[in-house]
């Protein structure tokens, strides 16, 4: 197991290489948590190559919706021997980001998922099919307001209230 100071040094060497914001902390078990926010989305590939050189593994990609901030956010979470490095990229609505599948094969489903649920495009991919929802469903569902009653198909709730009203009128 690589010690925390070595992992810190590795992550800080990446942070020095790119422009952006950076923070790092260590928990009581000696595992590091680092956050890197890239100033330029085009630095993503170089950052991924640098992480790969340190045997990082892609854990997950999270997309966050544009909540009146003027941009979507992509957070790429990596694991290095139990420590966590998150690389964030800001994207204006409708912008595209380079695929990291050539570097991290397991990014494939994550990229298909955020392309499906958000207004984010991914370039350099061969398979851009939806992963979960049928083509008949409108896209970028995570960025749209969908009333809970629509999601849960509240027919049964209406039936319940109608029955209650009918019963009350009978009394």
């Amino acid at each position: 197991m690589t010690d925390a100071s070595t992992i810190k040094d590795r992550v800080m060497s990446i942070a020095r290489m790119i422009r952006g914001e950076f923070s790092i902390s260590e928990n009581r078990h000696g595992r590091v948590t680092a956050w890197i926010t890239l100033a330029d989305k085009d630095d993503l590939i170089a950052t991924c190559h640098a992480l790969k050189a340190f045997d990082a593994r892609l854990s997950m990609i999270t997309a966050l919706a544009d909540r009146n901030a003027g941009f979507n956010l992509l957070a790429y979470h990596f694991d290095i021997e139990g420590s966590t490095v998150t690389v964030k990229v800001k994207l204006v609505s409708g912008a595209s980001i380079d695929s990291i599948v050539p570097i991290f094969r397991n990014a494939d489903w994550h990229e298909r998922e955020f392309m499906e649920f958000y207004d984010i495009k991914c370039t350099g991919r061969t398979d851009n099919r939806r992963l979960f929802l049928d083509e008949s469903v409108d896209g970028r569902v995570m960025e749209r307001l969908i009333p809970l009653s629509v999601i849960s198909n509240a027919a049964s709730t209406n039936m319940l209230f109608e029955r209650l009203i009918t019963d009350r009128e009978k009394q």
Partner: protein
Amino acid sequence: MKSFNMPVGPLHVSLEEPMYFRIDVEGEKVAGLEITAGHVHRGIEYLTAKRNIYQNLALIERVCSLCSNSHPEAYCMALETIAGIEVPERAQYLRVFADEIKRVASHMFNVAILAHVVGFESLFMHVMEAREIMQDTKETVFGNRMDLAANIIGGVKYDIDAAQSAYIISQLDRLEPLLLNEIIPVYETNATIQSRTRGIGRITREHCIEYGLMGPVARGAGHGYDVRTAAPYAVYDRMDVEVITYPDGDVWSRAMVRLKEVAASIRLLRQCLRDLPDGATDAGPLPFIPAGEAVTKVEAPRGELVYYVNTDGTDIPARVKWRVPSYMNWDVLHLMMVGEGISDIPLIVNSIDPCISCTER
């Protein structure tokens, strides 16, 4: 040799959960496959943005039944990190206890299904009957056989007193000899199990790294990553966690890892009960969660489960995202299946212990 395409699924592949495979077949051998998900996508991540932080705890426990404790645990850990909440020591032991009792039941279910797919129905019944000991234990301790509702933000909402502890130990004393003296030896030596599972669906340690595989699938190919030791949480740093690996990367190895992990989990359950300290079981009611973000990971029965939680200081989380271990394991079916016989498809699918509820969150 005649080539054709064969649809498998969405139902009837080992488990009655839907996943569709279009298999390219040459003669009786698999030449390639295409996986299509999306039959039961429930939009739970979207729903988390419609509920408050505390309501989400109940929702998230329902992502999956077999690893239902791992989801709220990782979610609570993320919120505790954001809010700087110290979970009492007793609660951390109780979290480990809930984790391990779920691992026992989950792994035993998977190896039982293996016996069912092979056609060894008496073994299937025997393993499921032994598993009932743990199911009964969960029902007695937690009031439920699957969704334990053990975790709250800042601790747990169950406790174990001396009488319950004695009962649990008596249950473990019933299960352990069945496992060690009867069940594991059958999987290790029985000719039917061996002939159907050894050398089938092979992957290597290098494949595990390339595909980002986790859990018993990776450990069955010699890749010994386990969150409990790689990134300890709760009190796993004080527990005698055994990372069990097998080198061959086949269906049998994955089953053996699970069986040996059941035995190891039973030992961890005993250790929890032995070392359980006195004290509070939570850090207080309904803690305020400030704005922040955190990434947490736990070792679910199927491997590493990762949570990202982003809060903005309101009751509603800005984003809750998780990645389940099955998410990567689907991809490696391309490697495991090609060159194998059609009759081995259900065995190989079952060997990754696929969780469609988790995948189709």
